[in-house]
């Protein structure tokens, strides 16, 4: 077990290092920098721009900048964001918890709902609950997330005014509110983006979990459990599910990067000020240190989560994930 954790951690660190280097190299080919003429008034003399570039180190050769950047990264410094007039670390430390909150809540709700749907489908295999839920989860995968987001926003937000359509908190002096009101306000703003992401997660989890459950239900130990006189729900929850959930957890780990990617669009649509929105703004402002940090952090988060799900899958179902 310890060996698994250590090898997975080393592996994760190596992957992050390679991704960081390749993103840095790729950005060297990108046109312009934060001081390009196209981004602000054309009346600023070239000399001033050159001075700015020199001050932020943009005039150094790429190899020197890479060494400086990697060295700073090793010390935990991510650089300076010229478009936000803040250190990248400050921008990121605001944004990352918000994305973690959104993706985390969506993951937990989506995973629980997906497993529940799959158990219900397996219980009523080939009867109408299975077919109806099957059609719904197929739809949940086939309808793009950004459209689900728009539909939820239009109906739940604009038409029925149940939820706010954008932002992370109400306007005004919310810091003076009592704590529970602040939390309630956050949850109220979180509801729509989290529900949309959770629907996407639940549909995918349910489809895989249903297939895994039906595969396990054919096996001998299930027949034994039924022969003992166990009820069908007990057979499903206590015997079939623990043996069928491991691969689904591992698969969720593999799907996490695409979930983070989906969160980018959801954040943009709902104006949720997390990493996705930060990345969009940084790209438009040609703020490459921030872009670099955003892509790198998303990768680190995805790798971390995947390592974690690998370990969890191993803990839940040791015999199913061990390679021969």
């Amino acid at each position: 077990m310890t060996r698994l954790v250590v090898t997975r951690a080393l592996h994760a660190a190596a992957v992050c290092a390679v991704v960081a280097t390749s993103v840095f190299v790729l950005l060297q080919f990108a046109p312009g920098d934060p001081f390009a003429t196209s981004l602000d008034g054309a009346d600023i003399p070239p000399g001033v721009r050159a001075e700015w570039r020199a001050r932020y180190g943009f005039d150094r050769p790429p190899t020197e900048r890479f060494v400086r950047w990697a060295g700073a990264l090793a010390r935990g410094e991510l650089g300076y964001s010229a478009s936000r007039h803040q250190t990248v670390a400050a921008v990121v430390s605001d944004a990352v918890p918000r994305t973690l909150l959104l993706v985390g809540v969506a993951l937990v709700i989506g995973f629980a709902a997906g497993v529940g749907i799959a158990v219900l489908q397996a219980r009523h295999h080939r009867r109408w609950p299975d077919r109806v839920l099957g059609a719904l989860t197929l739809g949940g995968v086939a309808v793009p997330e950004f459209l689900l987001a728009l539909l939820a926003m239009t109906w739940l937000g604009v038409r029925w005014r149940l939820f706010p359509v954008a932002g992370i908190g109400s306007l005004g002096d919310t810091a003076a509110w009592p704590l529970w009101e602040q939390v309630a306000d956050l949850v109220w703003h979180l509801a729509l983006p989290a529900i949309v992401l959770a629907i996407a997660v639940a549909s995918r989890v349910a489809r895989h979990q249903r297939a895994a459950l039906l595969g396990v239900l054919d096996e001998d130990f299930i027949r034994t459990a039924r022969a003992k006189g166990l009820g069908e729900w007990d057979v499903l929850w206590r015997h079939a599910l623990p043996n069928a959930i491991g691969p689904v957890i591992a698969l969720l780990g593999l799907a996490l990067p695409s979930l983070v990617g989906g969160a980018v669009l959801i954040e943009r649509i709902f104006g949720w000020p997390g990493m996705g929105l930060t990345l969009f703004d940084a790209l438009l402002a040609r703020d490459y240190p921030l872009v670099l940090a955003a892509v790198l952090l998303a990768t680190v988060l995805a790798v971390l989560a995947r390592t974690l799900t690998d370990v969890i899958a191993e803990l839940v179902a040791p015999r199913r994930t061990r390679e021969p």
Partner: protein
Amino acid sequence: MATNTWRRLMHDRPARIAAAVLGTAALVAFFAPWLARYDPTLQPDPVTLRLLAPSWQHWFGTDPFSRDVLSRVLHGARVSLGVAAGAMLLAVTLGAALGALAAVFGGWVDAAVGALVDVLIAMPRLLVVIALVATFGALSPWWLIALIGGSGWLATARIVRAEFRDHLQRDYVLAARALGASRWRIVWQHLLPAVAPQIAVAAALALAAVIPLEAALSFVGLGIQPPLPSWGNILLDGTDYLTTAWWLVVFPLGAVTLTVGSALVLADRLRAAIAGEEHRR
């Protein structure tokens, strides 16, 4: 044995319906210029013909620029499905080739492909594609195909590698080798046909992943650029009119959902056919 899998699939009703939907979509995409009654980019009268509800003249209504939505969805199928099919073919070919190389050669080739997969799988695909497009400027459809296809081969490579390694240990491969068949003859004549159903599953899943990806990119304005219609940018045009002009969103949304759903059903049924075949063996 793979032949039996295909036969099983052809007798499966959901699979036949899904294949028919995808086939129709492909035909519609191909014949779009002959099927569409209007020029998809023509704006005949942005004042009196704007945002008309569906009617006999305009089956899917008109958009804010007075363009015929049906014609745009038909031409959009050409662009969206063309990009999707191209990217899917590229991804599956690349994945099958790399997966096969890794399995057949093993050793450092296997390790190198494995490391490449590990790195690429960790990078959020949509995020990286958005970052690339936003930094380097809008891309032509050909670049989109290269970018989406070039980042989508991982699943196929994993599947093909695992299947090849499994089949390489079976008796028929040993028999072929004993008869003096070369490595490449075994790969082409025996392994690829045997693994074809699994590659088809990967292809269907790749298609189901690529259509929404193109739509999402065009939707944020980074994919297919107007006035060239794609399902993604037709949806983008409709977002401001969600509550007032439903036809701008419902028809392209239906097109995306139908094609993606069909690809998913096809993948499901193929998997079931493969499992049934393995079960019977």
